[in-house]
């Protein structure tokens, strides 16, 4: 039974990674940039929920809604101020370094406002959870909600991309910016929409992450952000189902290796999985192979 519990915990952590990875993979697929600040959007979302809940005496619903709205605005603003000017720069490294600057900026703003001490985050999910086999197998409420939310988001995103005009525009921009422009697609607007979706997902991921692991600091988002990026690469960057698979694999591997092998080495194992997968499939599990024409 305990193995099943760990597996479900892994699934839950993996679902959080998957939600973050979805944001990463969309932004990368469409804007062709590594948004290193994406993890920090999670942290911003957590602090918003934390502050609003504290001000309203424990009501987290308003906090979550506000966090989603403000993170969306933050994503749009960041894209407009810091990333858009660098579109078409001579080196793709320029926007990467700028994203790192944004990451430092957000972390230090949080540091100034909230200080470096770790805040204890109250779970946004009050539900006790499920109990099976006469209490031998218990699944926490936050675990159930996390998995459910990630599935809903995955389906919604798939429908959005494949069934709506804006979604199709995103695919077009991802394929070829120039050609998309010629087809009358507003590339700037499409990229902005991508950032909006990615950042709102980061806020949702933040709420779930801090509910499951309730310690909040200015650096809360950094490591989950990087792992989610690893998940996105693992699944094949740019692929939405790939991000989901990558996230789940990563979460399960992390929890199981922490439990059964060594908590010291779990990160090494997680990163090791990425190395192995990329050696077998250099563009990730569901990634497209693009060969340069000679």
């Amino acid at each position, binding site marked *: 039974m305990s193995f099943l519990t760990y597996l479900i915990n892994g699934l839950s952590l993996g679902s959080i990674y998957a939600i973050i990875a979805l944001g990463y993979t969309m932004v990368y697929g469409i804007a062709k940039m590594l948004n290193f600040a994406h993890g920090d959007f999670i942290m911003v979302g957590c602090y918003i929920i934390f502050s609003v809940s504290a001000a309203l005496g424990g009501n987290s619903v308003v906090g979550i809604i506000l966090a989603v709205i403000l993170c969306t605005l933050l994503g749009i603003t960041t894209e407009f101020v810091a990333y858009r000017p660098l579109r*078409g720069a001579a080196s793709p490294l320029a926007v990467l370094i700028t994203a790192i*600057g*944004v990451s430092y900026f957000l972390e230090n*703003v949080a540091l100034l406002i909230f200080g470096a001490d770790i805040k204890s985050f109250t779970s946004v999910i009050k539900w006790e959870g499920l109990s099976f086999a006469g209490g031998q197998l218990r699944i926490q409420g936050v675990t159930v909600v996390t998995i459910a939310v990630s599935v809903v988001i995955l389906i919604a995103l798939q429908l959005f991309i494949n069934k709506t005009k804006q979604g199709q525009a995103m695919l077009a921009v991802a394929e070829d910016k120039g050609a998309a422009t010629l087809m009358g697609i507003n590339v700037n607007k499409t990229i902005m929409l991508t950032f909006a979706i990615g950042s709102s997902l980061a806020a949702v991921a933040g709420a779930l992450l801090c509910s499951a692991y309730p310690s909040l600091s200015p650096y809360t988002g950094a490591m989950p952000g990087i792992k989610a990026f690893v998940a996105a690469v693992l699944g094949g960057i740019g692929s939405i189902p790939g991000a989901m698979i990558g996230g789940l694999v990563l979460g399960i591997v992390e929890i199981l290796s922490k439990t059964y092998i060594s908590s010291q*080495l779990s990160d090494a194992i997680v990163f*090791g999985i990425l*190395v192995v997968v990329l050696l077998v499939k250099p563009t990730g599990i569901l990634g497209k192979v693009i060969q340069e024409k000679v």
Partner: protein
Amino acid sequence: MKINKITKNNLITYGIVVAAFVLFTVLASTGNLSSHMKGLLIPMTYYAVIAVALNLCVGILGELSIGHCGFMCIGAFTSAFFSKATAEILPSGIRFFLAFLIGIAFAALFGFLIGIPVLRLKGDYLAIVTLAFGEIIKNIINAFYIGIDKSGIHFSLKNAMELGLDEGGEVIVNGAMGITGTPHDSTFTIGIIVLLISLFVVLNLINSRDGRAIMAIRDNYIAAESTGINVTGYKMMAFTISAAIAGAAGVLFSHNITTLTATSQYFGYNASIMILVYVVLGGIGNIRGSVIAACILYLLPELLRGFSNYRMLIYSIVLIVMMIVNWSPKIIEWRKRTLGRFGFKKNSGKEIA
């Protein structure tokens, strides 16, 4: 004509380093440098060294690495292990020299081994795998326990007790607590010498047959192959040399502090990214720029100490603004137009090295 120009350029680079050395030495000996600033001089040299190493990888070879601090970590730990184990036996000069050889050799070895899988990948996939390897190195070193007693070297991945040392045996690498008590052999002078040697190696390499092959691969690997260039071999060579130099930076690092631990602050991806910032702001492929950027950007947060809590915030804003001003296509165009109006001519061609 051209040979002279390159030689002159390289001499300017060495000259700047020597001038900085003289300047800081004079300032220090006349008491014009606070003890805090004095403490920054050695770190400044090893960050300059690893920036040179990373520029060889990113700017010359053209492969983005965000795990270079992993090689620094290997250089730091292998050399510190050696120095601590032989602290009683060898005189400090020879010991430190051997420590360098060991740190560099191990970093090069790992650069080579990691390069085999990594260099088969391309672009961002390659970058993320270097990040992964950097984290793996840091993680594994954190789980290492190594001790020495009369019967030899003992090793464990669990804890210090598992080593089963004799009485009088000594734990040298103590897991996440790292290595304590490495002799403080690094000095500013040695740091500058290592920097000069690194510059000499990289600048000379660039202006040799091998360097041209490496840059040819960077510019167009398909054309390089059909011109008969051994693409894999030269990639491995550049990556290994780059890792070796990063290892030398690690040796300086570990012999400058009392307790060496494989923390994220010094060896994680964030640290690697900080070096990348030096390289990009100094100019991708511009070796001299890397040295200058590393020194200025390393000192900048320290110089901003007056702003106390706001210093990193200011640093981040400076970083974003500098990137946009330097790289935004629209701003570059605007600058050209404005300068053109005042009769300035645009710089012809980018400077390499």
